[in-house]
């Protein structure tokens, strides 16, 4: 067999970026990848930050001189059982229908190169492929929400029943305790780093949310403007990150909380401080996706509610445009090299992934 016919795998670079974007346009036209600054941030800067010397996470399968498939991943430093390990969040995978199977070659390359490979929001097709290639834990993270304005929130559900309205009017957030305060921040300092280093051992697996990661992910984002704050309580401090999203063709804005970082017992006391701060902003509601049981438990104790998927409570998940997406929760998967596996790794509620991880909080064509 002529080996040149079977194709080669190369990393994406400045030399082939334009051709790669043209290739991607076949599948998702006018995508945010067209924004070179965004692409560079998402896929190149991340690799530098993670300390990935060998590759930037994005590979092209070249056959007969042309791109036949692409696999994109955000190189990431994970904290796993006390160690820092460079792996990746796999984000996209496309292949030409005329050369079927080439996507498999690229996914295989990703698994070969990444001792930890994670995904979020993957399709059943992708799950069916990945689950057969290496053992994966595939699960759904809970979505929590809290209402600021019941009437506005009602407009963003797909029901106008009295019971829906009554549910959205439930308020369970206490007033902030005396001695608590909130400070907007434009850097993640040594105090944050110290907190994270203490916290990360609570999780069996997490994106390593170091100060440098937080700066890259939220403060250096080329398109979105994130708000970051420190909430002080009598017993310690926590950090929140969120973004304001305008719901197109409506007067409503919602808050997408991306991070809630702190000891659970401090989060319980601090969340009302954040809620109080945001209450004056005219927002409909806020939501947050997280895989960790302790973090979610603390926020529920503070008054957030898990999204219930029954008819009548169909709170929209996507807003740009508003979409009745049936996935009220968000699926994640992680796969570990067999040498890293042990039974504790398979309890996903001990991981800490959020919607801020990977490319889930991503600009859509309407906002670029």
């Amino acid at each position: 067999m002529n080996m040149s016919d079977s194709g080669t795998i190369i990393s994406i670079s400045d030399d082939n970026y334009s051709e790669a974007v043209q290739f991607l346009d076949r599948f998702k036209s006018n995508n945010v990848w067209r924004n070179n600054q965004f692409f560079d941030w998402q896929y190149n800067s991340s690799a530098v930050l993670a300390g990935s010397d060998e590759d930037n996470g994005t590979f092209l399968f070249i056959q007969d001189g042309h791109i036949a498939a692409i696999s994109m991943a955000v190189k990431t430093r994970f904290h796993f059982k006390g160690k820092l390990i460079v792996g990746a969040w796999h984000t996209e995978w496309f292949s030409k229908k005329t050369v079927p199977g080439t996507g498999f070659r690229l996914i295989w390359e990703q698994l070969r190169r990444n001792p930890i490979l994670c995904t979020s929001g993957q399709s059943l097709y992708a799950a069916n492929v990945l689950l057969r290639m290496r053992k994966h834990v595939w699960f759904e993270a809970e979505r929590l929400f809290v209402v600021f304005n019941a009437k506005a929130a009602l407009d963003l559900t797909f029901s106008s029943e009295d019971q829906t309205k009554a549910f959205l009017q439930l308020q369970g957030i206490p007033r902030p305790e005396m001695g608590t305060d909130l400070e907007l921040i434009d850097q993640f300092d040594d105090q944050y780093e110290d907190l994270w280093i203490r916290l990360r051992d609570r999780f069996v697996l997490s994106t390593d949310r170091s100060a440098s990661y937080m700066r890259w992910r939220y403060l250096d984002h080329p398109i979105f403007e994130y708000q970051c704050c420190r909430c002080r309580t009598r017993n310690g401090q926590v950090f929140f990150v969120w973004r304001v999203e305008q719901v197109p063709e409506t007067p409503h804005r919602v808050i997408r909380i991306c991070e809630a970082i702190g000891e659970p017992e401090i989060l319980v006391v601090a969340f009302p401080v954040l809620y109080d701060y945001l209450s004056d902003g005219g927002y409909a509601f806020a939501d947050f996706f997280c895989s960790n049981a302790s973090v979610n438990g603390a926020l529920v104790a503070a008054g957030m509610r898990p999204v219930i998927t029954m008819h009548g409570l169909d709170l929209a998940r996507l807003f740009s445009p508003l979409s009745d997406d049936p996935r009220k929760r968000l699926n994640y998967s992680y796969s570990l090299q067999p040498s890293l596996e042990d039974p504790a790794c398979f309890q996903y509620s001990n991981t800490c992934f959020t919607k801020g991880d990977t490319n889930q909080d991503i600009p859509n064509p309407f906002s670029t």
Partner: protein
Amino acid sequence: MTRANDILAAIFDAIDEVNQQLPEDQRLGKSGEALLTPGLSKLDSLGFINLVVTVEQNIQQSFDKTITLTNDEMFSESGGPFGTVQTLADHIALLLD
């Protein structure tokens, strides 16, 4: 039957099984020359990995031995085992030795 024939039979049975899930124009032929290489064969990614897993299961049933076909060598520069049905059969024979 020789062991080589048994191996081919296990692969052909796997092809039959995978073909049942595929439209007619994407089905694999049952010959030693049938191409398996992703990008050259008709199988898409799911079809390919289904074939790999089914071959592993069939070999285990036929020979009472567990083999793993997914490893670092599966797409090696020298071609790897997934060129054709025959190269896969030869590779399995080596694993069973």
